[in-house]
């Protein structure tokens, strides 16, 4: 073919952009010069079924670079262009669980793996094998890459609408698909909330010694009509014995669901109906104030 298509040129442009993000040398580690890149369709070749996690967000391109240093195991860096900072945060939030690594706009380190998000990028840094001093090397590598990402991003706006009192910050998950909701809070094997690529959702936990753990789910649909239909679907499947969108579930706790404009808000496992309702009303108040 004599001419390059627009999408091919775009992809090549993104590749070059990502190559520039990755330093050729960090400390005594040197790139092995064999970068690999994968798009949404080819990424299965690199990571098998795990690719679905990234594909469930707006993932564009993955760049993999291997760094070598004498006497140390190679370090692998995987940088994902997630298309938006919201989705970069989303894929980070999917399994944020370990100690904050102090890298980028958010990171966690555990088990020899550093996970970071900054701007529209999410990246993993890990060593091929364990080594005593590797943690420091991984953190330095992560910081060098984060430094080269000049443009910061913002977290999903929906997060601002979560009530702050009792909120466990590290528990916030941002996602689009029901599969992800089920990972953090199994609801149903069917997509009863009608989640999809066009919906944005946050799930967060609230905790206090007296109340135990309460979950709050906030979903933004494209239209109010879709939000109402989703509520109907949810109530029909999850609480067919209730017409009010409120039910005391079999564990003795309360599920409360409400639609506000194009948002569906559900609290799960509240010790009292009033507590679940209060969380929802506080969310609605935040949504109103943001307008």
């Amino acid at each position: 073919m004599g001419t390059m298509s627009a999408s091919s040129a775009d992809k090549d442009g993104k590749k070059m952009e990502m190559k520039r993000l990755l330093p050729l040398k960090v400390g005594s580690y040197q790139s092995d010069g064999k970068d690999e890149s994968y798009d949404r369709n080819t990424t299965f070749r690199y990571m098998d079924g795990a690719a679905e996690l990234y594909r469930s967000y707006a993932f564009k391109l993955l760049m993999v670079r291997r760094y070598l240093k004498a006497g140390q195991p190679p370090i692998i860096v995987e940088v994902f262009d997630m298309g938006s900072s919201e989705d970069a945060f989303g894929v980070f939030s999917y399994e944020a669980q370990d100690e904050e690594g102090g890298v980028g706009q958010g990171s966690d380190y555990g088990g020899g793996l550093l996970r970071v998000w900054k701007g529209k990028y999410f990246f993993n840094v890990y060593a091929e094998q364990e080594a005593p001093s590797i943690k420091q090397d991984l953190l330095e590598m992560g910081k060098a890459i984060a430094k080269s990402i000049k443009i910061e991003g913002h977290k999903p706006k929906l997060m601002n609408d979560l009530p702050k009192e009792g909120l466990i910050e590290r528990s916030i998950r941002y996602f689009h698909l029901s599969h992800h909701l089920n990972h953090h809070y199994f609801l149903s094997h069917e997509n009863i909330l009608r989640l999809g690529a066009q919906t944005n959702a946050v799930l967060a936990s609230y905790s206090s010694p007296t109340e135990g753990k309460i979950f709050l789910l906030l979903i933004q649909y494209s239209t109010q009509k879709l939000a109402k239909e989703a509520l109907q679907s949810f109530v029909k499947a999850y609480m067919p014995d209730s017409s009010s969108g409120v039910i005391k579930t079999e564990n003795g706790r309360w599920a409360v669901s409400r639609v506000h404009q194009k948002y569906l808000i559900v609290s799960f496992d509240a010790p009292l109906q009033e507590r679940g309702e209060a969380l929802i009303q506080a969310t609605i108040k935040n949504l109103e104030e943001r307008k």
Partner: protein
Amino acid sequence: MRKKSKVITRRDFLRGTVYTAFATSMGLGLPNEKEVRAEEKVKVVLIRDENVIGQQGRIDPDILQNMLDQGVSSLVEEENPLQAWKKLIKPTDIVGIKSNAWNPLPTPKELEAAIEKRVLEVGVPKKNISIDDRGVLDNKVFLSSTALINARPLRTHHWAGIGGCIKNYIMFTSTPWLYHSDACSPLASIWNKPVVKGKTRLNILSLIRTQFYGRGAHFFDRRYVSDYKGLLIGKDPVALDAIGARLLQLQRVAHFGEDRPLDTTPNHIFVADEKYKLGVSDLRRIEVVKLGWMEGALI
């Protein structure tokens, strides 16, 4: 008229009205015992040996061979291991040993060798035996096989919930991504393809090392790999996977002090039973015969 399937929700688990392998990954535990259907139980054999992994982390091939022999003998109720294998494989068979090459946790080479050794001793010529994973669709032995032995490690899998016996046949299709929908629920349909249908004589889940939780780009984290030092052996791949999913759940509870749900519900196990009739997923209909060292066995 097609019967409309019921939507299963969290509340079904809270009520204890769903009690198949489907329950094992939810972080909700198994419900109370209820009446078991009247059908016969499916037999699987769990065998463990605390010395199968040496101090250097290497697998002892002799101990593993012995575990395999004991397990197969128990399964087919034949004391002599070679006679036991002869109940599974004929000298005229063309035998494909379906392995798993996933780099972080592959089927142990020692297990592949132990299986091949017994198949050879049954009288199958070397040229009629092959061990393969990703190349099975280009492998003449597999393409003309009359018998398959399915052997792979047990691990969590991001999109299928667990990687077990059922999923190990994904390489028998050239379009694996077509089976990724609904958390890989159609996986068992691969077992109806002519290249494999009715050929599987034995399934072995290697529990020598299990990965009970996943994390990171490749869904592999050394912290969540356990030296369980066992093999789970049976003829029913669904039963093995159901027990496997339960074991991984119990390992998560033991490790974390609480259950953590899998990324994905391994409902392909449930679907393999209910829709494709490949085997039994109801844990109460599976008899686990335990042999050898059982300290910390969890199941």
